[in-house]
């Protein structure tokens, strides 16, 4: 058994954005912190689509965005509705308003970004221990007093589980149950190298600027969608789909992404590129409903995606910003002392995270509309295509065209009304 003098104030498990933010803030507050990461470097196990909202970096430390190695500032938002060979793109250009002259969101590649962030935490005094997988918690008299890794124990006043979506530690602590297949999406992604000038040409952006593109209707009817983000010298292309529905769809996650690369809307955007990496990761999709009732117990708390702090709004995923913000709240709770659960809830409330997640609660119902993933994109494309079809005949009224498209897509009016009602109620 180790001596008390060897114990540190806090052990943070997982050097993702939540864990690094938490450890960094604890070190800045003068606490002794060990940040344990199973990868050989921080970021070497981490995957995201790639858009990070900068307000969260500023919440960790003002000025952090400017110092961060982000890829591009997002100045163009695109939504693409597609079926097998057609597509319709809505493109919004012009940077959204943000505080000061900071971009509101930036694209990132986690391997580079997390490594930089962890370096910064180390410089502030965090002891980063990479290449170590935490195997279990050390629990004595109902209190978490440390961790076990590779047969050795390490003690701390508080253990923070920032171990991401599969969080085995939060489960061991009894705060969360088994992860259900309904609660997650599987993300499969390729990073494809393209030179900067080509990216700027194809996406209509300037140097240092980038685009965020979300695609609907490209998932063989499976609940989900696809994303395309521009990096400095590459693009991140991926799908996120419900694993539950894959078997019935008759395709595979790999096949779906490869089919997307060959789609006429996508092919010209990635032509000439070289795939650098193939990655996969789960992401929570159950929003506030997936956040456990209790976030802490004696000597232990859970933060980041391990605590379910992710919002999938369809047109954007917010896991990285919520990870940062919740990591900061976890640090504040530990510094405040007293009952961890109470202090953590108070810190989270101050950050605005619970209010943000509750406000988006209805999106789960919206995303649950099955027709959103194949039928409606096809229907919209049919209607728009018929609008643009001109020949010698007198054009049919739009309402007739809409009705014809609904018939062709086997969508009864009452289904549209019902889905519309769900949609309106949920947003």
């Amino acid at each position, binding site marked *: 058994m180790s001596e008390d003098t060897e114990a540190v104030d806090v052990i943070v498990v997982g050097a993702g954005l939540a864990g690094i933010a938490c450890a960094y803030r604890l070190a800045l507050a003068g606490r002794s912190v060990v940040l344990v990461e199973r990868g050989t470097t921080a970021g070497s*196990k981490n995957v995201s689509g790639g858009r990070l909202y900068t307000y969260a970096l500023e919440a960790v430390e003002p000025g952090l965005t400017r110092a961060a190695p982000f890829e591009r500032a997002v100045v163009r938002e695109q939504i693409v509705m597609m079926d097998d060979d057609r597509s319709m793109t809505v493109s919004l250009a012009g940077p959204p308003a943000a505080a000061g002259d900071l971009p509101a969101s930036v694209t990132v590649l986690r*391997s580079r970004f997390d490594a930089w962030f962890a370096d910064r935490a180390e410089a502030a005094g965090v002891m980063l221990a990479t*290449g170590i997988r935490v195997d279990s918690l050390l629990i004595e008299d109902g209190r978490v007093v440390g961790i076990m890794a590779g047969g050795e124990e390490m003690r701390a006043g508080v253990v923070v589980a920032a171990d991401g979506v599969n969080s085995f530690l939060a489960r061991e602590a009894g705060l969360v149950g088994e992860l259900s297949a309904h609660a997650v999406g599987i993300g499969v992604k390729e*990073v*494809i190298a393209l030179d900067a000038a080509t990216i700027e040409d194809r996406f209509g952006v300037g140097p240092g600027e980038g685009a965020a593109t979300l695609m609907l209707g490209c998932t063989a009817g499976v609940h989900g969608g696809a994303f395309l983000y521009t990096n400095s010298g590459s693009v991140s292309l991926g799908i996120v789909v419900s694993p539950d529905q894959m078997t019935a769809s008759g395709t595979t996650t790999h096949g779906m992404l490869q089919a997307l690369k060959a789609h006429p809307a996508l092919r010209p955007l990635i032509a*000439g590129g070289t795939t650098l990496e*193939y*990655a996969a990761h789960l992401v929570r999709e159950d929003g506030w409903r997936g956040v456990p009732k209790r976030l802490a117990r004696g000597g232990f708390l859970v933060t980041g995606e391990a605590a379910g702090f992710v919002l999938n709004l369809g047109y954007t995923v917010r896991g990285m910003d919520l990870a940062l913000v919740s990591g900061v709240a976890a640090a504040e709770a530990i510094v405040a002392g007293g009952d961890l659960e109470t202090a953590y809830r108070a810190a989270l409330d101050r950050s605005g995270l619970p209010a943000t997640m509750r406000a988006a609660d209805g999106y789960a119902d919206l995303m649950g509309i099955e027709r959103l993933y194949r039928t409606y994109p096809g229907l919209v494309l049919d209607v728009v295509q018929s609008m643009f079809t001109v020949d010698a005949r007198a054009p049919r009224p739009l309402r007739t065209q809409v009705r014809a498209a609904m018939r062709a897509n086997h969508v009864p009016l009452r289904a549209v009304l019902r889905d519309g009602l769900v949609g309106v109620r949920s947003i």
Partner: protein
Amino acid sequence: MSVQPMSVPDLLGRDQFEVDEDEPHIVVDVRICATCADKPCVAVCPAQLYTLGADGALTFDHAGCLECGTCRVVCRAGGIVRWTYPRGTFGVNYRQG
């Protein structure tokens, strides 16, 4: 070179792995899998590590695992008898993320 649809082995060839030969981090009991009707792991695994033989029997290989955990959440029949992350420093090493 143009971006083409790529095979799984070709895609995995772009990644860096440190395969743990001594201690597989996922263990599958194929006798249990024989009783699993829909075998959802096959369609979801992005690395296609769960494959069906001509006789319909399942085989699994842990080398090339992207550590997503998807097989674990879809496996209801219990064929995955162990699922952990690889031991420290082993497994996939993302250089982009």
